[in-house]
Structures are given as C-alpha cells and as structure tokens.
C-alpha cells in the first residue's frame, strides 16, 4: 500500500472542499437511509457510508469536463460532482424533482451537465463504456479524462478483463478506481478471488503499475487521483487504483449485514474517513468553528432537500412513454 498522503502541498481550500464533500455525502446518505426507514425510498439503494473519501478525493482532483462512470453505489460520486442533494434524494424517492424524474432510479443516477455519465447496475459493462468516452477524447484531442468507479467483486467478471486490456493497448485517458470494501453483496470477496488485492494484483496483467492506497484518507486518494489524471492527460494511458475501504452499512438498503465477523465494523469505524479528515484538518490548524460551519452547511442542504422532496409530486405518468428513441417517443411502428 502506498502510504498516506505525501506532505505534498494540497492547498488549504482544497482540503476544506474535500471535507465538505465527505460531510455532505455522509449526511445525504444517512438521510437516504432514514427516508427508507420512513418508507419513502421505494426502490433499492446502495449507500457509500464509510467510503466517502474516495468519491471526494477523485471528484476534487477532476477538472470540469472530466467524466465519471459510476455503479449503482453511485450517490456519493454523483453528489461529489456537484449534483444537488435534492435531485439525488428526489430520484431515490421517485419524485418528479428527481435527477431523472424517477425513470432511472437510484442505481442509474446520471447528470451530463456535471460530467456524471451514468450509473450502471450490471456489473462490468461500464468499465468498457468508460473506455469509449476516453477513446472519443483521444480521437478528438480533447483533454478530459474518464474515471470509472467499481467494487472489489467486479474484478472477477469478464468485462473487467476486456476493458483493462483494451484501455492499456490503446493508451486511453481513463482511470479505473476499485473501491475495495472487502465484500461483494453478502460474500467476502477474498473467498472467491485468487489474489489478495483483486485489482492491484492484476494490474501487471495489463502492463499497468500496481497501486494500492488507503481509501479512507481523502488526501491519499486526492494525490493518487491527481497523479493518474496527469498521466492520462499527458497521453501516458490508463491507471488502475485500488482503494482500501469499508462500507458501514449493508450492501443495499435492507441488508442487515449479518455476515460480518464481530468487531469488523467497529475496527473500520475507528478509521472512519470523516474522523480521519477532521483530525487532519485540526492538526493542520483549521479552526473547529470552520469545520462546524461546513458540517452545518451540509446538514442544512440535506434538510432543505428533504423538505423539497417530501413536497414534490410523483412524476406524471405520461413520461413513462417518452424518450425511448431520440424523437422523444416510443413508437416502434407506423
């Protein structure tokens, strides 16, 4: 594991931004869970509680125009790119104010204007799709980089292999980010994976560097992201970064996560990315009041979003029949 952030000079306001993003994601995700308990989140949902540093670190290192490709566990990455909490919660609640007005649901959050090119719910495909966006950038000489987030369990599916080889031979400006939270749904990924580090131990199979970082330290994530983006923009091809982390909640909304050994969650909660980062900022001399202000700003945004969503109507039913085709409709015949 590449150890914690080198003392490299992350600017003070970037650090505050990183903290803000993590806190905002934490608050929004917790609210999503509360709303589920209230029976207001009607579909499924997959939270990133405990994994916030990854979303924050990468998003903060991106430039405008860079593209994110997420999974069903994509609320965090969507929020980190600047999509409003209201639009995200609205989609989870199947309200008309949702990001896709309820047509996609929590697993498919997409906001093109923020560079969030979709969240994908079938394991594997989006690694290949991210390559395509990077191919377009390379083809046109555009300088944006595509980032593809996925989990440890995803490293065992075929599309992973196809995508990595393809990105490597074409030297595409794409960054593959494995959020290794130890588990697939309810199974320990180590039980079904031939190597210890499911992504990093396979990097060599594609001629890539082996990179493992502490995914609970936003500075480490940010620095690794910066380095990968610089390489990509310089035409040096793809990177794969394995981030070690842990999800505090179950796999999806209703999973009590009983399969975890006793004490595992507690151990990881000691390494809660928000705690780590708050302490880091304090040790760097940031005033507690400043941090509390960030926290309160996040809470306020989440509260306001929640109220807006509670008040929002469901989508009008006629939109069920729109946007199958580019002409706006669903007609398959004349």
């Amino acid at each position, binding site marked *: 594991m590449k150890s914690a952030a080198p003392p490299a000079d992350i600017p003070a306001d970037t650090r505050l931004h990183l903290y803000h993003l993590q806190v905002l994601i934490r608050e929004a995700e917790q609210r999503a869970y509360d709303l589920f308990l209230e029976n207001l989140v009607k*579909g499924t949902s997959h939270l990133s509680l405990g994994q916030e540093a990854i979303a924050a670190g990468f998003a903060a290192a991106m430039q405008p125009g860079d593209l994110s490709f997420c999974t069903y566990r994509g609320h965090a990455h969507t929020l980190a790119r600047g999509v409003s909490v209201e639009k995200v919660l609205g989609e989870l609640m*199947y309200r008309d104010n949702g990001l896709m007005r309820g047509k996609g*649901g929590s*697993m498919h959050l997409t906001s093109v204007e923020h560079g969030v090119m979709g969240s994908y719910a079938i394991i594997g495909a989006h690694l290949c799709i991210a390559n395509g966006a990077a191919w377009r950038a390379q083809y046109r000489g555009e300088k944006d980089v595509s980032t593809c987030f996925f989990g440890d369990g995803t490293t065992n599916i*075929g599309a992973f292999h196809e995508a990595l080889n393809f990105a490597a031979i074409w030297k595409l400006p794409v960054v593959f980010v494995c959020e290794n939270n130890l588990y697939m749904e*309810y199974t320990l*990924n180590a039980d*079904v994976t031939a190597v210890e580090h499911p992504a990093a131990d396979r990097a060599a199979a594609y001629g890539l560097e082996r990179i493992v970082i502490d995914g609970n330290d936003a500075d480490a994530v940010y620095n690794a992201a910066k380095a990968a983006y610089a390489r990509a923009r310089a035409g040096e091809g793809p990177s794969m970064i394995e981030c070690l982390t842990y999800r505090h909640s179950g796999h999806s909304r209703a999973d009590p996560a009983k399969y975890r050994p006793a004490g595992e969650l507690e151990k990881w909660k000691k390494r809660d990315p928000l705690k780590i980062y708050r302490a880091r900022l304090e040790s760097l001399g940031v005033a507690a009041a400043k941090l509390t202000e960030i926290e309160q700003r996040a809470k306020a945004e989440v509260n306001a979003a929640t109220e807006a969503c509670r008040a929002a109507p469901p989508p009008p039913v006629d939109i069920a029949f729109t946007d199958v085709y580019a002409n706006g409709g669903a007609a398959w015949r004349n």
Partner: protein
Amino acid sequence: MAELTYRDAVARGIAQEMERDPDVVCIGEDIAKAGGVFKATWGLFDKFGAKRVCDTPIAEQAILGAAMGAAMTGLKPVAEIMFADFAAVCWDFFANEFPKTRYMTNGQVGVPLVVRLGNGGAARFGAQHSQSVENWCMMIPGLKVVAPSSPVDVVGLMAAAIRDPDPVIFLEHKSLYATKGPVPDGEIVDTLGTAKILRTGRDATILALALMVPRALAAAEELKSKHGIDCEVIDLRSLVPLDTRTILASLGRTHRLFTVEENPRLCGWGAEIVSIVADEAFFDLDGPPVRITTPHIPLPAADNLEDVVLPSVSRIVETVRRSLAS
C-alpha cells in the same frame, strides 16, 4: 399440508431433489452462506454443506460454464443467475452452449441442468433489474422454459426441471417470492409442458404466466361480477414445451383469445401463441386475438410509472370488455 411462500417453495423443491440425488449441486452468487439475495436458497447450505451449495465470484459465465461442464459429465447442477437481466452477461451459454450441444454432438452429450433466474418487475428496481426474459429464452431452440405462479407449482416444477435431462430455464418471479400458498407434504413432482386451467369460462380464454396469473384471475372475477363476462384463465406454467393442446381446446370452447404478457410487446410469447392459434384455429375464432403486454419500452423505476406500464387488472378488464363488446 403446509402454507409456504413461493420463496420457501424454491428451497423446498431443491432440497427434495438434493436429498434424493447426490448429483444435485447448487451454484451461484451469495446463494450458500447468505441463502441467496432473494433468500430462495435459504437453509440449503446448512443442510447440505459447502460442497453441494457453492458461493461463487461475480462471474456468470464461470458459473454457467461450471454448471454445464458438470452436467455434461454427470452432475445435475442448479445454477442461480440472481436477476434475470444478468442473463445478458452470460447469454452465450443460454443461446449457444446449453441448447446446441446435444444436437451438434449428434446426441453424444446432454446438458441436464437448471438455471434459476429472478425474473420480472413490479419491484421498482428499474430497467436493468426488472425485465421479463421469458421470450429471450423461448426463442432459443433446445432450451426448456418454465415459469410457475404458485408455491406448489414451484416445488413440483422445480423437481421436474431437476430430473429433466435437458437444460431448463426456471424463471422465478421476484414479485411472487413473498406470496403464499398451500403445499402438500411429501414428495411433489410435476410435469413440464402442462398448462393449468385455473378458472373455467365460456366467453373468452385468457392466457397468463407467473405474476400475470393472479392479475388475470382477479380480472376474470371482475369481468364476471361487474360485466357478466365469463373467462377461462389458463396458467401456461411452461413455454417450452408448450401445452398447445390445452390452449386450442379452450379456444374451441370460448372462441376468443387474450394473452397477458409481462414481457415487452415485440416477439413476446403471446405473439407466438397467437400465430399458432391464427394458423391452426382460425375458423374457431369469433374475433381478433388480443395481446395485453407491457408496452415496448424499458421499464421505468418509479412505482407509479411502473404501475402504468405493466399489465394491470384494470387494463385486462378494460381490454377484454371492450374487445368483446365491439
């Protein structure tokens, strides 16, 4: 006679066969220690152990390939592909490997396995986790395709599927898992390729499958009580083999046909049946055969949107009523 959920019926059917035949093994993601994402294999791991109930990586091709190779050489694997939509990532096995092997090898090699899929919508999972893929399977020569609607049928058809010497795609409907029904004690073995007439009637035949069966039945009740229209409701249960005899006989009595299909419209099972009926029972028909399907669109996630697109009791009632009136 126990009252079982459809979910528990899955485990009961598999357990019945595992007890009987040591060659029956289960394989899939999270099916063992966790008892399955839908809890449909709950208890099998405790009863039969890690050797016979196997967790796998997220690697559907590896799962089905392992099942196939084992089936070709003597085992009777029961593989789970969690959500039916994921059949798309291992479709080569459904389309090219399982169903063609016996034929291409001139009968040398069979592929006796069962693939279980969590099929269908109404669970607000959105376009990539809600599809009804029965037509994907029906169109592939060499597969058998089963889709039960009740717990007792789940047990009996599961047993029949496991004992069958050909590859059987076993579609479990996600939105039926929590439903309950009576299941007799003791061994139950049903017969593939047999439809069930669940309600007799004189005015029209309604064909349905899986989640559409309770809806068709409720519609038939309403058509009778509110409109005096007397429908026969047939639960197809199996698309391949297809019990055309029961269908054609019913039409010989009612002279009108309706299908209630959860699959999106184009090339659904109802199209096939209408084409059979139109060819073979044309002069039995008193009016156009009508298909009630999900429109040809991806499924929306939101509850109110999903509810307007899946065939509903009221849409069935309205369609039958208007069609018989005209």
